[in-house]
């Protein structure tokens, strides 16, 4: 098979690995597998995959530990696979350098979308001057936001908020990351401000068109700008 990209699955559950392999191979990925954290780290060093799917509950070491070790020498996009629907655990993983997470049982289409978003990271960092998704268009150079071609007036804070979300389009951005980027280190505990500005921003984007679900809330974690073709 001629594979475009490669993915490494680190999970001790054989059935989950098999299902992920099916889904990923269907999406044109070369798939590698590892059952333990140690084996996973060795595989990453050896195979250099384009994306890593990491289970948090591994038999030999905590997935979080694998992630922290990995981040010492690699910035490969990492998606956390978690069976536990615990927001704190996800936030910890995201703050430790994970790019996104998927909770088991997961939807295959959503998983693939998250993988695509995680891999897009480097594209955003190259600094495209215009972002366009569905009805939303953001021109970074002109500092201009349009919905269906109609310009929307945003306050400086609302614009900063939208810019961070757009730069991470399709990926979850934690409350802490948003607060730190927009208001600086000291504002980290001011989640209330953030919530109010998100509400303002949503309303403005809504006025310009039917964009109510553009900014998705990830409960207990942060926000995600949903992307459309």
């Amino acid at each position, binding site marked *: 098979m001629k594979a475009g990209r490669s993915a490494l699955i680190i999970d001790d559950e054989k059935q989950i690995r098999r299902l992920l392999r099916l889904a990923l191979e269907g999406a044109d990925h070369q798939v590698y597998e590892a059952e333990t954290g140690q084996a996973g780290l060795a595989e990453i060093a050896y195979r250099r995959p384009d994306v890593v799917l990491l289970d948090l509950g591994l038999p030999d070491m905590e997935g979080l530990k694998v992630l922290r070790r990995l981040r010492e020498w690699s910035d490969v996009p990492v998606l956390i696979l978690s069976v536990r629907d615990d*927001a*704190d655990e996800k936030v910890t993983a995201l703050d430790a350098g994970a790019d996104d997470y998927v909770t088991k*049982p997961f939807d295959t289409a959503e998983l693939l979308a998250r993988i695509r978003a995680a891999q897009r990271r480097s594209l955003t960092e190259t600094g495209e001057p215009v972002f366009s998704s569905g009805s939303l268009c953001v021109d970074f150079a002109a500092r201009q936001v349009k919905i269906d071609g109609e310009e929307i007036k945003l*306050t*400086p*804070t609302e614009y900063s908020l939208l810019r961070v979300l757009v730069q991470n389009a399709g990926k979850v951005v934690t409350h802490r990351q948003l607060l730190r980027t927009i208001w600086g280190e000291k504002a980290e505990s001011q*989640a*209330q*401000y*953030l*919530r*109010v*500005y998100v*509400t*303002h921003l949503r309303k403005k984007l809504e006025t310009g068109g039917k964009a109510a679900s553009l900014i998705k*809330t990830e*409960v*207990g974690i942060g926000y995600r700008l949903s992307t459309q073709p």
Partner: protein
Amino acid sequence: MRYINHVTGPSISCPSGPQSSKPSIEATTNGERHVSSAPFFAPLKEYLTAVIGVGALTVACWLLTPLTGYGAISLIFLLGVLLAGMILSRGPVLLVAALSALSWNFLFIPPLFTFHIEKIEDALTFATYFIVAITIGSLTAQLKAREHLAAQVQLAQESERLRKTLLDCVSHELKTPLAAIAAAGQELSHLSGNTQDSQMLKELAGEIRDGSHRLNRVVNNLLDMNRLESGVIRPKREWCDVRELLQSAIDAERESINGRDIRLDVPEEVPLVLVDHTLIEQAVAKLLANAGSHTAPNLPIEIDAEYTNEDLLISVSDRGPGIPPETTERLFEKFYRGDNRKTGGLGLGLSIARGLIEAHGGKLTVENRDGGGARFVIRLPVRVTNMNGMET
């Protein structure tokens, strides 16, 4: 039931389960019933009560002696022993009997302030008093022991009934979707892959998806119930938009709502509230699932929210058959499924919803609506924010 009937898979027997057994457990919604500890080793508090009681009685008798004479005092003491038998356990009652006999002898029978008894009739009265008091003490203690045993037997019967209902419900609710998944899976492996089979393939895949959704729901309900009962649920409050919260509950229950018209009404003036989004969303979702399973598909479900007197009120109203007045509280008991059992499920949804709301310091109640149907009302004490004073 949605499962197609042309599959010929392995037969997994599904017991009729809750249909054949009493669906609710009385007096156990809040965990175990308290049963007093073994009667003989009553806590120190009871012994102290016994001593103080005899002391008080002695003072009263001392004051009464000039009026009644010391003979009648024994009857008052006897009344005291009887009273003690009704409220105390065996050890303290026997202590009351012994102390009162000694007190009567020492303070009332001449010669006073000695344990010596001069008159033969006094000695006889004292002996009789002592025997009667000890007998009363023993008899009441025996009665108490029997009561204790009966309570234990009842508790054992109740937990047995709970265990049986749980087993019946779980095996039925887990085995039915498992049977469907197993059957569909086996059928899939027999397909030859020709075009005729493609419709069948779709149907079987649908069966597997429905079955696994149902299993997932049952497992989640059992886990939620367990988490609630073990008291590990602690609300993690964050600032929430009420409309968004309710919309996400609706999205989560798309399947059980099954195309019904949902009318969501959240007035503009409802502020951001500080609540645990996940807990409240789950509770509202359970109410929606309940409304969905009790109303005809053509009838709407209404969700309203308002903020009043520092409380957030969320109501979920349907146009189903409503609630018979005598079942309004039983509705929230574990495994209670009402008279209409065709709706399936474990009967845990409303119990979990109430548990989630109470874990959040709120209340969940139900009432019948004018014109038919039920209205579930969540009342939550919340902190709010207003959006004034921000940058414009």
